[in-house]
């Protein structure tokens, strides 16, 4: 019997402290985790198709979170996306959810909220 490979959660955020902190916590939950500094770096990596859930920052230099979401749709990569944003603007959050995001987490968020969101993405 093969040991099931842990589900890969990818983190795309231009903020370094998020890239450092979040994967460690996700691993504590038993997920595999990879972090990318930009949407372009994620798209160029070998992990796109393996990713089960994408924790995606909204505002980034270059390609933004929603831009990446659109690009993945265009590539027919159906990866569940949880947006993470420091801007708590309600209208922006509503728009993101309307465009197919599973959840939107407003930084700073608790580990409960994170688990809940990732859980929702995987089911």
């Amino acid at each position, binding site marked *: 019997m093969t040991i099931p490979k842990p589900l890969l959660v990818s983190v795309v955020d231009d*903020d370094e*402290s*998020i890239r450092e*902190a979040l994967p460690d*916590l996700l691993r*504590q939950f038993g997920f595999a985790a990879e972090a990318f500094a930009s949407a372009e770096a994620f798209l160029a990596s070998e992990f796109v198709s393996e990713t089960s859930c994408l924790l995606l920052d909204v*505002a980034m230099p270059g390609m933004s979170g929603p831009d990446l979401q659109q690009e993945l749709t265009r590539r027919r990569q159906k990866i569940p996306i949880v947006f993470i944003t*420091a801007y708590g603007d309600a209208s922006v959050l509503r728009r993101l959810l309307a465009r197919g995001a599973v959840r939107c987490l407003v*930084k*700073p968020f608790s580990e409960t909220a994170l688990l809940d969101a990732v859980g929702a993405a995987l089911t």
Partner: protein
Amino acid sequence: MAAPPVASASGWIGFRAPNGDDADAGAASTDLSNILDAVEAPIVVLQRDFTIAGFNKATTDELGLSPADVGRPSRDISRLAGLTSLESQCSEVMASGVEARTDFRDGDRWFVVRISPYANAESRVSGTVLTFANVTAFRASIDQVIYERECTKAILNAVPDPLVVLSADQRIHAGNRAFYSMFFELASLRTRLKGMLSGGRAFDPVEVDQVFPGEGRRRLILHAHPLASPNHPEPRVLLTFEDVTARKQAEAANDLRAIAERKDGLRRSEAFLAEAQRLSLTGSFSWRVSTDEITWSDELYRIFEFDPGMPVTLELIGTRVHPEDLPLLRAALERARDTGADFEHEHRLQMPDGSIKYLRMVAHGIRDEDGRLEYVGAIQDVTGPRLSEQALGKAQSELAHVARVSALSTLTASIAHEVNQPLSGIITNASTCLRMLAADPPDLDGARETARRAIRDGNRASEVIARVRTLFTKKEFATESVDLNGATREVAALLLGELQRNRVVLQLELPQSLPSVTGDRIQLQQVILNLVRNASDAMATVEDRPRRLLIRTEDEDGDRVRVTVRDTGVGVDPQNLTKLLDAFYTTKSEGMGIGLSVSRSIIERHHGRLWAEPNDGPGATFSFSIPVSQRA
């Protein structure tokens, strides 16, 4: 009868009394002979029968008579032939005893011969004495004078202007041809001439009009030149008559043309002015204060919508002025009436159809020589500009509000983002740390690492907060010498229109001299502006009393300058006075608290103090005082 010579041939010849009277041939005779011979003029003595009785030496020299001629009849002497009627003349002289004269030409010489009776010791006339005076040179000079006179006459007669010389009794001495052909009537000038002639002085030219036969009316200018000769005691005057008829006519024509042009120019400039007034919606007026007589230009009638030509009175004007603005206008006019000072005023009109006009008046006070006051000025209809100004002001304040709100929200969002990133890191790291410690076995290295990251993120968050604080507090602070009087005047000028519209009477009490302070002029003006606006706002709802606003500057013992802004507004609750100046405390929706708190911090940066006091009467007083500049 021959008389024997008694002297030498060169001396007196044949001196014997005529008719055989014996002369004493003694010493007296010798003296006489010497005297006669010394006389330059020839002297010849004739007997009663016209024979030569004797002659002196000059006769020999001048007329060539010789001793042989003594005793000869004078008619036989060829040199005396020119004296054609000598014998009859001598007879007459002897008969009458009165001497006679006759001219005598000898070649190119001229003599005047005096024929005197010769009387002997018994006063009996026994002959004649002929004395020859040589007048050749005299006659030549007379001829010269006559010739010169003729030349002068010719010149004067050629002059077209009349010339005449008058004596003191106004008799005509001489005139040129033009004068005599003019028939000038001097009678009209008698009085003037009299005064002038008696004084012997020149008089100013006199202009006279006179009608001349055949020439019509002529205009003449008379000039008088006194003629004075040191050897001639009688004063005379030369009158010259300058005919200026043609010139005067030309001048009159020019004057008429000039007047016509001026009138035309005046009409044109009046038309320009009227057009300018119409275009600029500006009318002009004059107001005689003593009589309240008011004159209006056409444009003012149009602005006030009164029938042109209607007599304008202060009462009539009062019927158009907006009731709310009437007291202030009256106050301004009364002040003008008292002081005579120039003034500017803005007020509204309420037209019969209910529409509102905004007028701006500028008036300049002048006094005539009797000290009577009159104002001349202009009134401009500024309704259009005022309405757009109001619209602009409203739009501006709305925009400012929007800008403030949006700036605040942008700022907040930016601060939130900057702070939330590290906060997010802290929470995530702390969660991870807890999980690592709770694992079995605990991942102590991992926990330490995540805890370190949490600390790092915490520091990052605190750096963000520090950055935001510097962003808000770091402002350029200029230090210059500031004249608070000047600064206050500028603020007052800036707000004057606004205050008038709010029906606030502004009073400035600024001393002649005020020490300067050191600081940021603009920031201090913002404080004054803020205090004045607050004061004006505090009176916005006051209807039962005048809305008075006083700005006063004063020197506090030479080391501080105090600025006071006093209003008659709603006032402040003494309990709120301190709180009033705290940031974010406000009694109004517009956020007066923020303004006051900023004002206080500005004043404190100037090492000064800002405070508020309730008035004894209605309203409140806000004051600040700051130290004067240190003298270098």
